[in-house]
């Protein structure tokens, strides 16, 4: 029996302070004008959305601040000065293990995984034209989960988990795409097929859970909640390498995504190869989600909630908005993980519990708002 201690007053104070800061930041963001300008250098040119640029800068500052908090805060008391010194220039020493082996990789993984999940959600939501869609809803997370749970249930090698999760997620995405194909893939059909696949996968997971010994299933359940516990530099490297390829690809593809948003016919009229570009976008979106889930488990609601919030703040999808969405995703997951660690300290919750607890109500709010609009 684990006794859950009530939150420390300082933790609650910090939490309230965080919420207050968020509200103030959101309020302030209303004063950033929606101005645009071009940057041109001989035959190179780009349209700069100044509002998105400022918001992104604010998000970067937020991420850095939250990272600092993540390095300082924890069960083992390390002063702010010591933590930063150890992390930045004075490697080794007394706090090296706590700061550089436990905390630093963990905050890095949170930022990168949050970035991947949010960017994936933004791609799917824009492509399908529905703010209630995300890779977790159409079964990509569960595709990763069923493979990972199976490995854990049969007592397989734990180091295989990321690979199994990635294979599960990407083959699920492929299966959905193939099943939704009928002289082309329409957004609505993709979602419906995805929801169906998701249900089948959920049933499959339940079957594995009742079929295998309970001790192993507990480990599987913990993985399924989505957690950053034990995140290592290897995990961070995996995510960073994936993001180095998928991030630029996603940003470049948003140009075509913006035209696919106008419907297939208008997109063809503007010179888009609709099916090829849609397949590319689904591929990149699924890979982003798959990589994140492979490392941190199927963290719910990040991919659903963050893109919506980003759109509210920064506007319709563009390369810049996609980057902002990713940064906001990193900030969100990092914050959620810190809350998960500190809220009932020393009892630690999986980050997925917090993203779910924040995301669920937001989803209901979205649903209510959306239904009113219909």
């Amino acid at each position: 029996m684990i006794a859950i201690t009530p939150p420390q007053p300082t933790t609650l104070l910090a939490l309230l302070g965080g919420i207050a800061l968020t509200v103030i930041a959101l309020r302030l963001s209303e004063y950033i004008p929606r101005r645009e300008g071009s940057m041109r250098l001989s035959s190179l040119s780009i349209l700069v959305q100044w509002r998105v640029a400022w918001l992104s800068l604010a998000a970067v500052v937020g991420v850095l601040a939250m990272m600092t908090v993540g390095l300082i805060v924890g069960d083992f008391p390390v002063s702010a000065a010591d933590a930063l010194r150890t992390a930045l220039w004075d490697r080794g020493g007394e706090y090296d293990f706590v700061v550089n082996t436990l905390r630093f990789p963990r905050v890095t993984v949170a930022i990168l995984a949050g970035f991947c999940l949010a960017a994936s959600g933004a791609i799917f939501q824009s492509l399908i034209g529905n703010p209630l869609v995300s890779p977790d809803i159409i079964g990509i997370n569960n595709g990763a989960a069923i493979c990972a749970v199976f490995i854990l249930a049969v007592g397989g090698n734990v180091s295989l988990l990321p690979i199994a999760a990635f294979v599960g997620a990407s083959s699920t995405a492929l299966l959905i795409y193939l099943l939704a194909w009928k002289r082309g893939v329409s957004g609505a059909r993709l979602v419906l097929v995805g929801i169906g696949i998701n249900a089948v996968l959920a049933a499959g997971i339940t079957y594995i859970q009742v079929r295998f010994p309970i001790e192993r299933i507990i480990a599987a359940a913990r993985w399924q909640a989505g957690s950053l516990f034990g995140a290592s530099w290897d995990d961070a490297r995996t995510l960073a390498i994936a993001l180095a390829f998928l991030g630029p690809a996603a940003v470049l593809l948003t140009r075509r995504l913006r035209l696919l948003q106008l419907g297939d016919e208008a997109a063809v009229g503007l010179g888009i190869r609709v099916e090829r570009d849609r397949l590319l976008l689904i591929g990149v979106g699924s890979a982003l989600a798959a990589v994140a889930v492979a490392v941190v488990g199927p963290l719910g609601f990040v991919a659903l909630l963050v893109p919506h919030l980003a759109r509210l703040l920064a506007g319709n999808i563009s390369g810049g908005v996609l980057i902002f969405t990713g940064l906001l995703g990193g900030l969100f997951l990092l914050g959620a993980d810190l809350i998960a660690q500190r809220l009932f300290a020393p009892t630690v919750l999986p980050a997925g519990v917090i993203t779910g607890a924040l995301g669920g109500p937001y989803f209901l709010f979205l649903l209510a708002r959306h239904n009113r609009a219909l």
Partner: protein
Amino acid sequence: MSEPNRLPPTLAVEQIALGYGGPLIVESFDAAIPTGQVTAIIGPNGCGKSTLLRALSRLLKPKAGAVLLDGQDIHRLPTKEVATRLGLLPQGPRAPEGIVVSDLVRRGRYPHQRLFDQWSASDEEAVVSALDRTGIDDLRDRQLDELSGGQRQRAWIAMALAQETPLLLLDEPTTFLDIAHQMDILDLLATLNENEGRTVVMVLHDLNHACRYADHLIAMRDGTVIAEGEPEEVATASLIESVFGLPVKVIDDPVTGTPLCVPVGRSSTLAK
């Protein structure tokens, strides 16, 4: 608007047959779109007029024959290059929630942009000019969902104009608009044709609008062209009856002098 040294584009269909997998909707026929004029495709529901427009705009690949843009098969040309010559406004296009007018119009520039040349001075000029010519300059920062049907349609036309194509294809551009807005949109298209020599091809539901605004009519029934030519030649009582299966009287439009088709229907007997 297009490069001055380029010849005006021509659009023609050769022995075309169209269908969606099942039986053919449009049987083989030839047609040429007169360059620099307004062409209207008319005919009863299900006659294949939208299907023909879809083929002309390369949305539908012909089962046989070919659509020729400047003498070349449109499906053999790179689609992005076709998009610099031929603009399309589909019927009932969709737009993402919350999109603002200028953002929509900007997307029309895609065929002219390259990966690292995404917002040149000519892109900006084209968008400003398109907003100006469609008279929605003051709406540029408004959300599309907040606009009236007529204003929204103007925004879509502005997007197609920003594409700067000498050919413009429109599928029923006046559907779902009230009579004042229908006139408004058709007047706008007529102005674009007169001032800029743009070739306009549109599917129109209203026969009298077609007679008034088009230089050239293509009348279809059951997937074949029944008649083709100037409104005065096509809109005769016997031809219209054979196309729509409806007896009409053709008089001169009191405003423009173009043919005006007045359906006979049962009203003649009711009046007596």
